[in-house]
């Protein structure tokens, strides 16, 4: 109890020192925020912070990953066999589809050549694993284990086995942050596959829900309609599934329909995603929604492999 006698630290704190420190630290934090938000001066620092944080984030996700790997390696023979049978059947179906697809692709190319429009198909893709950390429960964002060193650039589209997944919002050297199509700040131009009607799909903040708020009352949309990316804006390759309409509310009092859709991609269950490069030669009438994307893509060019050069060069155009 008499310990304070020998303790050199002041018994009382506060007073002007505490207030001064509050002001100094508050100003520093405010300055950082302004620099980060307004001028984007901090991209080097951000990259550095992201790189420093990445091993830590990886370590946090490691137990979950290790558990999954362990379950995998201890899975029973019977389960593996049944999975194998299922995959073989899937493979057969996919091969049959692919046979038709190749001839259709050739035909499509010929027809497009006739019309002198370029076919924008995915040229190159990169598998990136999702690091299992919760960045923010209310923002739909994920972290992946590939960055600018692998050629990833800001504004790059990410796709999974079932459809459009999202786009890269920040690319660090070894990791990148992807905004999912279900994030409330995300919008993607789509087409209703059945009718060809163009509209925009917004995220809702919940992983299984998208909304289409911009279709008029007389629009031809029914439950079950497939929504595919239209390619307008140039971020996403055209023709990939985005979602399926699950609910259409026609309220005569409202000028627009309230439509809900379910994302095609397994947004909350994917262990990995594909980052894609595609030919963006066609200049669309609309500006790209992310004006910083071409700039950062050019910036990332020196760090990326030569194989990435064609798309990056096209971005700069």
């Amino acid at each position: 109890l008499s310990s304070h006698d020998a303790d050199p630290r002041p018994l009382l704190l506060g007073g002007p020192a505490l207030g001064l420190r509050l002001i100094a630290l508050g100003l520093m934090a405010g300055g950082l925020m302004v620099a980060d938000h307004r001028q984007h001066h901090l991209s080097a620092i951000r990259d550095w912070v992201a790189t420093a944080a990445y091993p830590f984030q990886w370590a946090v996700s490691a137990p979950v990953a290790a558990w999954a790997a362990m379950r995998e390696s201890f899975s029973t023979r019977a389960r593996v066999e049944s999975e194998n049978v299922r995959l073989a059947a899937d493979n057969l179906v996919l091969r049959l589809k692919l046979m038709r697809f190749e001839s259709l692709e050739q035909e499509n190319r010929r027809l497009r050549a006739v019309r002198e429009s370029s076919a924008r198909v995915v040229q190159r893709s990169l598998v990136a694993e999702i690091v299992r950390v919760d960045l923010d429960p209310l923002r739909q964002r994920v972290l992946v284990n590939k960055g600018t060193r692998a050629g990833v650039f800001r504004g790059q589209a990410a796709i999974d086995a079932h459809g459009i997944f999202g786009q890269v919002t920040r690319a660090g050297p070894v990791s990148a942050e992807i905004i999912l199509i279900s994030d409330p700040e995300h919008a993607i131009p789509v087409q209703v596959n059945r009718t060809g009607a163009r509209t925009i799909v917004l995220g809702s903040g919940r992983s299984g829900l998208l909304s289409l708020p911009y279709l008029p009352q007389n629009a031809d949309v029914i439950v079950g309609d497939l929504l595919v990316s239209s390619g307008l804006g140039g971020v996403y390759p055209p023709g990939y599934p985005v979602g399926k309409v699950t609910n259409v509310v026609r309220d005569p009092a409202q000028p627009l329909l309230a439509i809900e859709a379910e994302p095609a991609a397994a947004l909350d269950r994917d262990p990995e995603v594909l980052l894609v490069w595609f030919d963006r030669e066609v200049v669309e009438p609309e500006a790209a929604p992310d004006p910083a994307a071409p700039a950062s893509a050019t910036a990332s060019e020196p760090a990326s492999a030569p194989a990435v050069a064609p798309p990056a060069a096209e971005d700069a155009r």
Partner: protein
Amino acid sequence: MMYGSRSNFGWGRILAVTICALAASVAPLPEPLELMRPDFVALTVLWFSLLSPRLLGLSYAWCAGIALDGFRGVLLGQHALSLVLIAYVAAKLRLQVRAFPPLQQSAVVLALLFLNEFLLFWIDGVAGHPVTDWRRWIAVPVGAACWPLIAGIYSRVVGRR
């Protein structure tokens, strides 16, 4: 004997506690629990400010906030500002709060966590990325409810100074 470690204030333990709090705030959780996750870093900063302000003060809150911004990938300085402010208020109130019974302490922590979340909400809005979902406030009462537990653990691990 009891104060033998006074010369080194147990920096190793403090660092370990901080890293655990940061890890707990990004560790993967199933979806319903994810929304209820208390802000462990804010609780840690509050504990140090209320019960050991002579050990770690505003600079600690600032550094922890910058680290959290880095891990979450949000605007750099956002958590730093909110944590410094609540650490300041907590350090000012600490002599009263320390005498409070646990329930009343939780009430103060509830108010401070609410202030923290409100500042974050505000900064989000000013920066043009508003999250208006009401579910962002769920974590505030959960954090206040966790306060006695967290305070108990920290008192054991770090010890009051």
